[in-house]
Every structure is written in C-alpha cells, then in structure tokens.
C-alpha cells in the first residue's frame, strides 16, 4: 500500500543526488564500453628476408650437443624454436645421459639468457674491443715469453679432448707454462688412491647397473657426485622389479642425510670424521672372510650388526658388489680400494680401463700454484672456467696472491669474484653458443655444436687461446682437425672422415670401440698399514676436537646449486632441496636431538666457527643428522654472481679445511653460537610425516616376493554419485614408480622450462606461493636419528571425478574427453575454490603478474630472459589458477604428428617433460586405452595404487609402491 511507504525527503544540501550518481555511473560505463570498442592494437609480422632451409617459424629443430652444467658431460638435444634454444633434453644416444638430464642440465638453457653475462670483453675494468684485448694480451705474452717468465693456466675440469690438445699446444708454445686444474669440490683423493693402489691416477667408471650390493660412504652419487644422471640411471636399473623380485641392496653410511642416503635400503648416520673407521671395519670383516690379514679397526662408529650384514652381503656377491666412497682423503679411499679389490669388483663393477675424466681437479697443485703466486714466481695467469676467489677454501689468500701476478686474464662469462681482479676479461660463449667436444668417460665421445649464434660480443675461450697462439682463432676448424687427426683413426665404422664427422655431429655422440690392449689386471699394491694408521690418527684428532668444542661440519652440494657456479640461475635457486625442501639459501642442518638440547628451533640464526672463520646461518632441524655433525651446503653466499644469486645464503667454502694436500669435505672442532635472531626459511613443505596414512605405500622385498601386492592391500569401497564417463579414443594416464623415483628434482625444472612456470622468489615461497606444477613431497618416518625417507612426485592427478571441477562457478576447470582435467586460463576469474577443494593441493594461483613485473626480477621481466619461454604455452596472468596439464601441448603436437603420419601415436611417442627428463625412468605417461602401453602395464601391476583412493576421485595418475631391500635380519 502506498500509504505505508514513508517518503524520504530529498536532501538538497547533499550536493549529489542519486540521479547524479546514476548519471555518472551511466557515463562511466558507457565511456568504458566505448573505450573498449577501439580497434585492436596493430600487431606486426616480420618475416625473414631469406629463410634458411630447415628453419621454419613455429617448428622446432633439434641440435645434438653436450651439457656444460658440470663436467659429467651428458649428451643433450637442444630444442630450438624460431632460432633460439628454449629447452634441452637428454640425448638418448649418449651413454652418459641416456636421454635424461638432471635439474642443472635442464636449467642451463636459462643461463644462456642471463642478463648479467658480459656483453663483450673488458680490459682494466672497462669495456674494450677484442682488438684492444688481443693487442694487450699478445704484448704481455710476448714479454713473458721473452724473459722466460712463468705462465699458469688455471682451469676447471676439462673433458674436451680438443681443448686438452689446445692446452698442450699452448704449453708447447710457452715452455715455462703449466696447467693446473681446480675443482671446487674435488675428487683428487680418489685419483691419488687409485695411483697408490693400482698405479693408475684415474677415476674409475662405476658400473652400478652390474652391482647387486652397493655400499656408499658419503658419496652422493644419485644427487651430485661425479656423474649423477649416469649413476642414477644405472642404480635405478639395478632395482627394477620387472623381472620379479630382483633388486640390488644399497647400504649408505654418511654424515648427513643426502639424497643418496635417503634412497638407500639401509642408511645410517655416522660422524664425517668416522667414515674412515667404517671403511676399516668393513675391510676387517671382508678380509676375515677372504682370509687375508688386515690391520684391526679401532672402536666401531656404528652398529656392529649392520656392518656384519653389509660385509656378509658384499662377500656373498663378490664381483657384483660395489663400495663407493666420497671422502676426499686418500687414506680412506685406499681402504675402500682394498675392499673392492678383495671383493673382486675391480674390472667388473669398477672399470679402471675406461676411466672417467669427469673430475680432474688437483688440490695440491692448486695450493702449489697459489704458493708460487705468493712468491711472485708466476708472471701470467689465465683463468678458464674457475672462480677460486669464491670457491677455494683459501679464497682470501688466493685474492692476495693474485695481487702478485702482473698479468691475469679471465675467460669468465661475467665479472665474478675472480674475474673482477683480472686485467682482461675475455668472456667465453655459453655452451649452447659454442663448438666443442667431450670425452667424459674414455671411449665415449660427444660433440657440442651451437644451437644459437652468440648473443653477445663474446668469444670462445678456445678461440682466444688459438688467437693468442697466432692462429685465426677458428675453434670449429681446430675441433674438426683434432677429430680428423685423433678420433677418426680410432674408429672403424666410417671410411671417409666427412661421413664420420657428419654422423657424429648429427648423433651428437660417438662411441669408440674398446681397446683390445687393456693391460694386465690391476693389482692392489697400496700400503694399507700406513693408510690405516693415518685414519686412526685423524680419528684420534677428531675425538680430541670433539671433546673440546663439540661439533663437526659436513660440507655438501645441493642438487640444484652444486658448487655455486649456477647461482644466478633462478630456476635452480627456487628448486627445493629434495631432502630439506628448502629453497633460496643454505642453512645449518642440525639433528633435532641436538636442537632440543641447545634450545634451537627452526630458523634460529647461529654462528659456526671453525679454523678462525665464522659463518652465520639459520638452523634447519634435519632428521638423520648425526648428533654432533652439522651439514652446510656449499655454493651459496656469492657476491658477484648477479642479481639473482648475490647475497643468497652464506659461503661455506672458507670453512673447508685443507689437509695433506686435499680439501676435506668436513671440518672438526667447530663451535656453534646462538645469535638470538630468527629467520624464516623459504621451505615448501613444513610437515614431514604422513601421519600414518598410506600416502606412500611401502613394502620390503621379501614381502613383495611373498605377495606382489604387499603394502598395497588397502582397497577402500568406492561409491560414486557420478555416471561413468565414456572412454573413447585416447585416454591419457600416468604411473610413477616410487621405487625408481629418487626425488632428484630434474622433473621440477624440466616442467618449469616446458610450461613457462614463473619464479616467485624467496619471500613468496615463504608465503607458500611457489608455482611449480610438480613438486616432490618428502616424508620421514621412524626414528628421528635414523629416519626412513620416501619421495613422491605430486602433480595434478587429473581426477575422473575431480573435486575442483564441481566447485568452479565459471567452468574454468573442466574435464576433457581424453581424461585430462583442464584449466582454462581465459575463463578463470580466480575464486580459488578449486584449490581449496583439491585434496592433493596441486593447484597454483597467480597472486601477481609474474611476467613483465620488476618486482619479480628474475627472467620474465626482460626481453632477453623471456627468450626462454615456450611459445606453445600461455604465460599466465594475475588472478588465474594454473596447474599441471600433463603437457597438453606435447599431447596435441604428438597427435598432430600421428595424424600427418597417418597412424595412431605409438606408445612413448608422446612424453611429458617430467617423464622425458627423469634419470631413473620413474615416470611413465601414455594411453590407458592401449592395453599394450607401458602405462597400462604399470597401472595393472599389483603394486599400483591411486592416492587418496577412498575419496573416489579416480585419478588417472597413480603410483607404484616403494620397495626396500632390507638386510636379512631386519626384513
């Protein structure tokens, strides 16, 4: 009724009436609508003037090359789109990589587009031209040669035969010159021990695939040690349960929880200073069985029963066992050599006739060079691929000694800690821009060819050397000539060199036939008594130091950052460490037991003092850490790496002791002081326990032998509200073998490279906003000092009954007919309901525009950095949800290729980026509607299960149980 309505009188004093507001609103809406009606912005298309054959915009081309991420020398295939490399993948023909890569290898492509690389040569701290630099160097070299001055060439490990020949030529030209090899993390003691034991100062090639029993002492061969991709694949191949119930057994003794230790069947923590005692104790037990007398061990550092079990296993599998030691102390390595010798492993699982060249650093020679520099005996120093002013334990001394060298040239790609002191910096190409070759293992050669013309005015280091030798500086000619002269005669397959060269270049690799003359079987002639005495002496010393001040530090490399040379690579900085799950920085790993005693909590900043040096780091409570040992990662605390790497974490290299000519991997007599400050670590996982739920299902090998479905019995009843979807055509699925997965993180970086996943930085990770589409969950169980660790790659599970799909109000996440859960970015309005409703927590929200935003100053805010982006995948904008798409762009491309070829895609033709990169072949993707596919076979295995099956989400992604080959008495 009208009378019931009270009229509100118009308020004339308000200035603005409702009508005015409506008018204004109408105007603004109209104006906005009109403004949005303006024609689309003009876009330009710029074709090439003349298009080289084989280069088609929008079509990738692949170049076989060799990785330069570390000296392991994996064969790679570089994917070029529109003339620029955007991704690298392992070369399946390479005997080292066998088609896989590690996280570092995947990330090298981003280093190519690093903003902080030098744009051209520098002379006396200022940009210069190559002519000026060459004139300067020529003049200085001539002067040094004229008065017989001493030159030194300090390089990293050089696995390139042609470069080694070039260095030989350089040394020939300057007779008073020497070549010194420096590795930040060296294996010099292993080479020295092989000299003492077998008369061969080489690194053996380890054949894990032939070993049934593996005992590791500290060596993190699955993560960082020597040649991780090669060794991880071989290790995983020895553990496949495909022929039922056969797998190798792996014991690991180590000073902190490493990736390798966490994957071992039986792992035990030992103080780093006591690893020699473990070796001695094992030797004593094995020798007793072999009937040879050996020096008696001192007190046992760990459980005698465990040592007995390991020795029993080793002895039972003589000739197919392997003891690997990563301690950089020749005395310990000599004992390990004797172990392998007594077990008959030399020549079987330990190949000395095809040695590895992957680490050639000589700590003693570097020390000697430094002394020579201090004495002013070195008149010229060329630095190639090294950064000792950062990564040498006595870096300060090195920098001071540099002051005594009148002529210093660096080939560094950036003005790093060492290059800043050089007179001339002659920036080397990135490896994707350069010609080269590699022989990581004797007889296994690979070639490196450029995948892009040099981006900047840089010059290959080899070209610089060639130029200073008086030649034209043509690396390609030198390389080809070297192969014609040295490599071609060693093979018999090709009669003409041109054929040989073309095929080798196309394949990327070339395996030379084994040389018939392998020499006599190596015999161990080492002085074991002396080695044992040395071990016992250092044990007593460590014992005394422990009584006095308490702690030991174990220095280790992280799988992402390694020795720190890639510190400016944001992908690697943001890659969570597999064991600690922490990104962006290093920390002091302490045992939770010790932390409880000292009243330390996660993130408390402490000062570690050792040998007069101090390092301030936050504390991370790490289960499995021996009580009195603290683990600290190397590779952080760079000061001249660039905008990404500078000031992240602390530099632990200066704390490493230098003893008897070797840089030790552990320090003794370390004091720990609290500062009272606390710092939040950028961790991506804050809870370590599965809380008793069967998230990662496990069984022991014995149980699996009795019942293949052991550990996987739980089959909840499933009730569905939804109709079964038809499964026509393709139906994609994935199966991840948790028994093969190491957690190494190669898949994480591969996914990042493939799918344009943004780097968000330390602060955003602290807020839990990392963007990785695939994460590797790590769970600990069992005792806090002896945890059982499992890894589980976790990405969108592509549920058949997807909880995310039912809550999206705008249908931005829907199901496809071929089994994928799709995220439609242009439809998403960012309610985040889907992420909330996802039981696997795999959805990632774009809280910011990560691209073209200077707040995220990594790689997506510059034209150079954006060159790495995959043009087949959208760069997501602010406010949308994203997640794993099972590499739908690869699926589509594979289907198109099949369509063109006229036959359905074969199993394995379409591979996701994570699957492609995986060194241990843990991930398999394929068509579930094809009963013969590998993924169907795996999903039919009794070990197969779906995560959180009781929710009846019906994922197409699933897992295979983790199996441990426990020692008999524990099984």
């Amino acid at each position, binding site marked *: 009724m009208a009378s019931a309505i009270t009229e509100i009188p118009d308020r004339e004093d308000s200035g603005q009436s409702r009508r005015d507001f409506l008018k204004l609103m109408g105007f603004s809406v109209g104006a906005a609508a009109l403004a*949005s009606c303006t024609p689309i912005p003009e876009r330009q298309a710029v074709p090439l003037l003349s298009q080289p054959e084989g280069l088609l915009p929008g079509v990738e081309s692949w170049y076989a090359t060799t990785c330069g991420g570390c000296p392991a020398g994996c064969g790679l295939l570089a994917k070029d789109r529109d003339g620029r490399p955007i991704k690298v993948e392992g070369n399946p023909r390479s005997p080292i990589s066998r088609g896989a890569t590690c996280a570092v290898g995947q990330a090298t492509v981003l280093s190519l587009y690093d903003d902080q690389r030098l744009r051209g040569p520098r002379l006396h701290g200022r940009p210069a031209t190559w002519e000026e630099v060459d004139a300067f160097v020529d003049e200085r070299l001539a002067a040094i040669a004229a008065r017989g001055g001493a030159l030194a060439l300090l390089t990293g490990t050089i696995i390139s035969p042609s470069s080694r020949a070039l260095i030989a030529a350089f040394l020939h030209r300057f007779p008073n010159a020497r070549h010194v090899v420096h590795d930040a993390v060296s294996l010099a003691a292993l080479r020295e021990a092989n000299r003492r034991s077998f008369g061969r100062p080489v690194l053996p090639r380890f054949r894990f695939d032939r070993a049934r029993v593996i005992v590791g002492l500290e060596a993190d061969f699955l993560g960082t040690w020597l040649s991780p991709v090669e060794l991880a694949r071989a290790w995983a191949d020895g553990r496949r349960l495909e022929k039922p119930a056969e797998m190798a057994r792996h014991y690991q003794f180590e000073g902190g929880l490493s990736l390798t230790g966490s994957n071992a069947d039986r792992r035990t923590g030992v103080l780093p200073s006591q690893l020699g005692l473990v070796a001695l104790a094992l030797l004593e037990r094995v020798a007793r069985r072999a009937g040879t007398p050996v020096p008696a061990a001192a007190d046992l550092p760990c459980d005698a029963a465990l040592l007995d079990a390991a020795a029993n296993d080793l002895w039972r599998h003589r000739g197919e066992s392997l003891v690997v030691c990563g301690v950089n102390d020749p005395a310990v390595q000599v004992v390990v050599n004797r172990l392998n010798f007594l077990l008959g492993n030399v020549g079987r699982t330990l190949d000395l006739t095809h040695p590895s060249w992957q680490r050639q650093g000589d700590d003693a020679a570097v020390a000697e060079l430094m002394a020579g520099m201090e004495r002013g005996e070195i008149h010229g120093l060329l630095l190639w691929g090294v950064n000792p002013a950062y990564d040498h334990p006595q870096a300060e001394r090195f920098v001071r000694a540099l002051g005594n060298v009148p002529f210093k040239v660096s080939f560094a790609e950036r003005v790093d800690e060492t290059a800043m002191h050089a007179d001339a910096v002659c920036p080397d190409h990135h490896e994707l821009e350069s010609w080269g070759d590699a022989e990581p293992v004797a007889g296994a050669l690979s070639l490196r060819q450029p995948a892009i013309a040099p981006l900047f005015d840089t010059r290959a280091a080899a070209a610089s050397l060639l130029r200073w030798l008086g030649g034209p500086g043509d690396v390609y000619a030198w390389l080809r000539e070297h192969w014609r002269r040295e490599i071609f005669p060693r093979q018999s397959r090709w009669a003409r060199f041109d054929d040989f060269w073309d095929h080798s270049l196309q394949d990327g690799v070339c395996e030379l036939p084994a040389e018939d003359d392998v020499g006599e079987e190596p015999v161990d002639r080492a002085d074991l008594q002396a080695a044992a005495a040395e071990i016992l002496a250092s044990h007593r010393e460590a014992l005394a130091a422990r009584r006095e001040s308490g702690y030991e530090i174990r220095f280790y490399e992280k799988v992402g950052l390694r020795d720190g040379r890639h510190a400016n690579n944001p992908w690697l900085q943001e890659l969570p460490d597999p064991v600690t799950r922490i990104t962006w920085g290093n920390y002091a790993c302490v045992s939770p037991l010790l932390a409880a005693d000292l009243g330390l909590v996660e993130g408390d900043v402490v000062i570690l003092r050792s040998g007069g040096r101090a390092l301030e780091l936050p504390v991370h409570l790490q289960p499995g850490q021996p009580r009195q040992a603290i683990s600290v990662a190397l590779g952080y605390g760079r000061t001249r790496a660039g905008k990404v790497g500078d000031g992240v974490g602390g530099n632990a290299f200066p704390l490493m002791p230098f003893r008897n000519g070797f840089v030790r991997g552990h320090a003794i007599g370390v004091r720990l002081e609290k500062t009272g400050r606390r710092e939040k670590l950028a961790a991506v996982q804050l809870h370590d326990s599965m809380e008793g739920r069967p998230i990662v299902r496990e069984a022991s090998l014995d149980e699996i032998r009795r019942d293949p479905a052991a550990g996987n019995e739980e089959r909840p009843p499933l009730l569905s509200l939804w109709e079964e979807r038809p499964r026509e055509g393709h139906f994609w699925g994935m199966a991840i073998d948790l028994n093969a997965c190491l957690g190494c993180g190669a898949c994480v970086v591969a996914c990042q490279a493939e799918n344009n996943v943004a780097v968000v930085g330390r602060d955003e990770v602290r807020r839990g906003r990392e963007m990785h589409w695939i994460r590797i969950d790590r769970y600990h169980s069992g005792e806090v000092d002896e945890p059982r660790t499992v890894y589980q790659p976790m990405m969108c599970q592509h549920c058949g009954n997807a909880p995310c799909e039912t809550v999206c109000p705008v249908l931005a996440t829907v199901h496809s007919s071929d089994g994928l859960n799709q995220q439609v970015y242009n439809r998403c309005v960012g309610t985040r309901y889907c992420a909330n409703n996802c039981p696997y927590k795999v959805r990632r929200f774009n809280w910011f525009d990560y691209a073209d935003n200077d707040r995220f100053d990594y790689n997506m805010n510059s034209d150079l950095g954006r060159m790495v982006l995959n043009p087949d995948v959208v760069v997501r904008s602010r406010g949308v949800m994203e997640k794993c798409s099972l590499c739908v762009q690869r699926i589509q491309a594979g289907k198109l290729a099949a369509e063109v070829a006229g036959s359905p895609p074969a199993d394995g033709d379409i591979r996701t980026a994570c699957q492609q990169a995986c060194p241990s072949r843990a991930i398999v993707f394929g068509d579930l509607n094809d009963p013969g596919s590998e993924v169907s076979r795996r999903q039919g295995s009794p070990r197969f299960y779906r995560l959180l099956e009781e929710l009846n989400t019906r994922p197409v992604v699933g897992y295979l149980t983790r199996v441990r080959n426990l020692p008999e008495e524990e099984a």
Partner: protein
Amino acid sequence: MRDFFLFGLAPYVAAACLLGALVWRTLSPRARKALPEVCRESAALYRGAMLWRWGLGLLLLGHAVAFLMPRSLLLWDRSPLRLVLLEGAAFLAGLAGLAGLALLLRRSGRLRKSTADLLLLTLVAVVMVSGLAMAVLYRWGSQWYALSLLPWFRSLLALRPDVSHVAPLPPLVRLHVLAGMAAAGVLPFTRAFYALAWPAVLLGERIGTLRASRSIAAAEAMAALALAVFSGMLLMGALRRVGVSQGYAPAQPIAFSHRLHAGKYRVPCLYCHFAAETSRHAGIPPAGICMNCHGQLKVASAEVQKLKEAVAQRRRLRWTKVHNLPDFVYFSHSQHVRGGGVACQRCHGPVEAMERVSQTALLTMGWCLDCHRKEGIMPASQRTAKGRASAATGGLDCGKCHY
C-alpha cells in the same frame, strides 16, 4: 582514383538526388496539392503484373533483411545446402522480376514514352541481369554482400567512404552495385517515385481521418515499443562485436595484391605461405620467395622496387597482421590445413578476390566452434579413420586450444 569516384562520391550524388527530389516534390505547395492524384495514377501505371510485384518485392526484402542481419546471413551460408537454397530462391525471384519487367514494358505505352522511366527500368534490368549472373557464376555472392558491401555501406553512412571493400570485387558485382546506385539517382525523376510514394500518401490520408480516434494513441505506443526493442537489439549486436575486428584491412608496406597473384595468376596459397602445412604459423613469405619471380617479372613496378630495395638494404619488411587471435588460444595452421584438410578460404574468405586483405571471418570462439561442432567431431560411430584423427586433435574440449 576511378574507384573513389565510382564508389566514394557517386553514392553521395545519388543520395543527394534522391533526397533533394524528395524534399522538393513533397514540400512545394503546388506539387503537394496535386500529389495524391499523381501518386494514384503512377501507382496504377507501375502496378504491373504479379510476377513484377513479387519478384522485385522479394529481392528488395531479401536485401533489406541481409542489410539488417549480416551475421545471420553468414551463419545461414555456412552450410552449402542452405547457401544454394538462398541463392536459388534469389535467382528465381530475379527471373520472375525480369519477366515481370518485360511484361510491364510491353503493356504500358506511357512508360515506354517517358525517357526517365525507360532509363530507370533499363537500369533495373541491368541490376537484375547482373544479379542473376552473380548467382550463377559466383559461389560467394551473398557472402560478398555481407562481408564487403555492408562494410562499405557503413563507411558511407559514417561519411568516411572506404572503397577498399568494393574495389577488389569482380566487375559483375561492381556493375550490379553501380547500376543499383544509378537507379536510385534516377528514381526521383520518374513516375516510379510517385508510385513508391503512393502508400505513404494513402497512409497520410487515412491518418487524417483517424486523427481524432483513440486508436492513434495505441498505434503510437506500439511504434515506440517497437523502436525500443529494435534499438535494444542493435545495442546488443554492437556489444557482441566488441573486440571483433571483422573487416579489418590495414594498409601494408607494399601494396601486394592477392587478387592479382592468387586470383588472376592463380598462384597457389601454399606457394608463398608454405609453412601452413607444417607449422603452427602459415608464415608471411620471406622476400626471397617474392624474388623467385620478381627477379625477372615486373621489375620496374614501384611496389616491386620497394621489395628490391628492402632486400638490397637487408631491411626487414614489417607487415601488419590482419588476422589476430588472442594469446590465450593456440591455433595451429598445420593442424587445420594438413590434419583437417580445411581450405584456406574457409577462414580467410575470398582472398583471391581481395586487392588488400581484410578479415572476413569473425574469429570469435563461437565462430570456431560452429565448425568444430560439425566436422571431425562426429559421433564415434560415424567416424572415418580420418575423422577420428581430427576428432582427437580438434573437438570441443577447452584444452584442445587453450593451454
């Protein structure tokens, strides 16, 4: 220049004639007085046979409907059967109209004597004959009306005549348009003008008698409602076209004529856009491709000189992209051309008839789906082996294009 006179100026002249005559003939008091009588007389004269009335009426109605709803016309034309149906109906109407015209002329001596009327009827005959020929000879007749002539009409209405839309059309179509325009210009000088005005005059008389009645108010309300609905529909139509750049035909650095190359000389599309079969991008040909022929041919032409200069100076040519898709959609030429066997013209229109390339298709998602709903996306039971493969890559799943 000639094109500009014919299609840029002449329409305004015709319109001015029409409007001027309209004003002069209806407003001058002398004329007004005699108007009803003249009108009645002229209407009787032009009444003619049923064939004439219906044929002409249907044709004019069809043009008017298509003018108001070009999008519906395009949608209708998407199926070949419906296209043939439409053009066939128009053809029959045209035949009927032409026959009616002949009958009209034969029966009415007065019309034959008036020069202006004879001229008008001749022009109408030309329009009809050319229209019939178009229906027979070209598949794209009605498409051209919607895609080329209407943008041109719109540009005329906006007083920014853009002749690029009509210039590339075949001579027959241009004749059709010009004759129609001329007929409109001649119209006010003929009796046909009065004949057309007759219904209005009649209506005016009726209103005069009804003015006092109440029903006029109802009629006015109805008219207002109709106007509101109509303008609402127009607004909706306009809003749905936000971001749609149909008809976009930017100028290019070199006035390359597809009409000449692809139309007259029949150079296959894939000769220059050779990447379309293998790559995601069809690609703009590198200058080297052009020089394959223009090394020898037409080297003196000013446009070819631009090309040669660019090659000599190693200067990249910066073309303006005509067809732009948003970044969040993945479109692969290879997938459609090689995988789906789709002809270029399906999406790009009659490029072989375009002097300057313009965007003929809507390029909206709905437009994509119109096709995806139909082809390669058949029910599994009807799929051939080929269709099956296309379905696997195409289809209606969001993730087939958005990733």
